[in-house]
């Protein structure tokens, strides 16, 4: 695909979210000068709640608005929202199950230049482990729209991880059905199930071409909903392939890899291989450099799929 047609999920999200302003209960909660809001900057004044510079206060502000029936969308930097305000999210949003959505523009390694303190590779772990919280990771424009629409309808708190890396469309189905607890089939295959989320779906499609030449026909699933986790979609695929690879731009602890292993180990044990960041902080660098350095490319997926395929029972 032509690079000019690629878009980053954060920009797609801002564009789509702006169309929600017609909802009576819609309100955007943000801090001044925090992130580039794109088209959201043009929202009517009464649809934007500018919070003070305190990150915990921003979360509590959204809770206050939700108590009066509003459906706030919080946008902000992941390291500030999730780590500085974890207990506020837990106590004021998740515990009372208020319908507040949190969207972050800097998920994964997409803001790699900012360094370890800013890059959260454990954000999905934190949000997945929190009761009542739903978690989604879109991977292209269609999934951004579908997930935002699903979050708009959902009761209870939602965490949506977005990124700044330009991405192409994973498939050409603009009306695809997206719902929390669902997964999307990106490629049919019979040899290995490859579970992906976010940017790793794109890498898996590249890996599929190489693996085809080796006689390994992989099936690729995009797990855009990490919580609720679509167990049936995973099991249906693994029952046919007999082995699995999980690939995510996240720590190997607590994200898609863990969810996959938790599901398979208790229900249908098969050989599983992970492509994820080891238990370590990342360095600063360009996103592509970092993905190469931490082993989050199609090459690692090829290796992992070949290993899983070799280990499966005949």
């Amino acid at each position, binding site marked *: 695909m032509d690079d000019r047609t690629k878009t980053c999920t954060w920009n797609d999200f801002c564009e789509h979210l702006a169309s929600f302003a017609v909802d009576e209960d819609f309100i955007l909660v943000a801090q001044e000068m925090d992130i580039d809001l794109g088209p959201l900057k043009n929202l009517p004044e*009464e649809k934007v*709640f500018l*919070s*003070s*510079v*305190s990150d*915990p*206060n921003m*979360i*509590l*502000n*959204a*809770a*206050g*608005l939700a*108590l*009066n029936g*509003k459906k706030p969308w919080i946008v902000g930097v992941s390291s500030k929202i999730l780590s500085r*305000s974890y*207990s*506020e999210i837990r*106590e*004021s949003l998740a*515990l*009372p*199950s208020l319908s507040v959505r949190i969207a972050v523009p800097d998920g994964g390694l997409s803001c790699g230049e900012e360094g370890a303190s800013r890059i959260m590779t454990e954000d999905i772990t934190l949000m997945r482990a929190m009761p009542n919280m739903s978690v989604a990771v879109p991977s292209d424009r269609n999934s951004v729209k579908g997930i935002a629409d699903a979050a708009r309808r959902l009761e209870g708190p939602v965490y949506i991880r977005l990124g700044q890396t330009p991405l192409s469309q994973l498939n050409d189905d603009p009306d695809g059905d997206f719902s929390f607890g669902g997964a999307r089939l990106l490629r049919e295959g019979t040899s290995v199930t490859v579970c992906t989320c976010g940017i790793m779906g794109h890498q898996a499609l590249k890996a599929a071409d190489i693996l085809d030449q080796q006689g390994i026909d992989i099936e690729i699933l995009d797990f855009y909903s990490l919580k609720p986790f679509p167990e049936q979609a995973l099991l249906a695929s693994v029952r046919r392939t007999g082995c699995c690879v999980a690939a995510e731009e996240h720590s190997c602890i607590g994200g898609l890899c863990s969810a996959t292993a938790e599901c398979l180990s208790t229900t249908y044990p098969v050989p599983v291989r992970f492509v994820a960041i080891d238990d370590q902080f990342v360095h600063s660098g360009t996103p592509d450099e970092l993905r190469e350095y931490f082993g989050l490319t199609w090459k690692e997926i090829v290796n992992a799929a070949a290993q899983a395929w070799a280990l499966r029972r005949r």
Partner: protein
Amino acid sequence: MEITRINELEQIASEVRKDIVRMVGVARSGPLEFPLLISDVLVYLYWEEMLLLAHTPKRNDRDRFILGTEDGVPALYSILARRGYYGREELWNYRRLGAMLQALPDFRRTPGIDAPCVTSGTELAIAAPLAQSLGMDGLHTRVFCLLEDKDCGCEDFFLEAARCTKENIKNIIVIAVYKQTAGSQSNDQQLKCRDRLSAYGWKVLEMDGSDFASMEEVFGRLNNDGAEPAIIFTSIKNGKGLSFAESDHVRTKKGMSIEAMDRALEELEGKSNG
């Protein structure tokens, strides 16, 4: 306020205090000192000041009450039961598995609870946008937020207080409670807090949280003006003269024995009768 009404309110507050002692005693855990301190203030708010109907607890034009400290929860539970939101028998299951009255209010399960009680951050950050949002919906409801005065000194509190005046939020009343011990004066932190809030444009008032006439006078002044957000520094006599309120199990929140509970109830009974 007529003396007969004051007597009635004092009688209700006395019964509320007995309920607090019973529920914390039966649960064998839970805070006791702070609920006893704030029971008069809550009685005044729920019987004299706030606009509410217990049989329609979700009515949109009701006044809201937000408790900013987990230590005050038993008092709020007891008040809501007395006010008819649920039966008093619920109090005796406080903190039990599956009970409606959990250690922290379950916002979705307990009638009369207007907001979750958070243990971190400033509750003003929940109360202020709620008040702002109600105002934008054209409702003339007020949001009352009760805090301990020590929670009014943090920077997050001041950031939110500044935002209140910037956004012209008028329908918020913060009640900052502090314990008045013999010969004590407002401490430095509280004086700085008062100055800073005055500078932001808040109305800063002082009342005696053990004296219903004082509360009526202060809220009367507020209702006549109501042009800016208000904070009422509320001094309350430590223990209200009750000897058990000074005991170790009260201060350390370790729960009280049945014997200690009986002694406390006897003392409260004696005080209310005489």
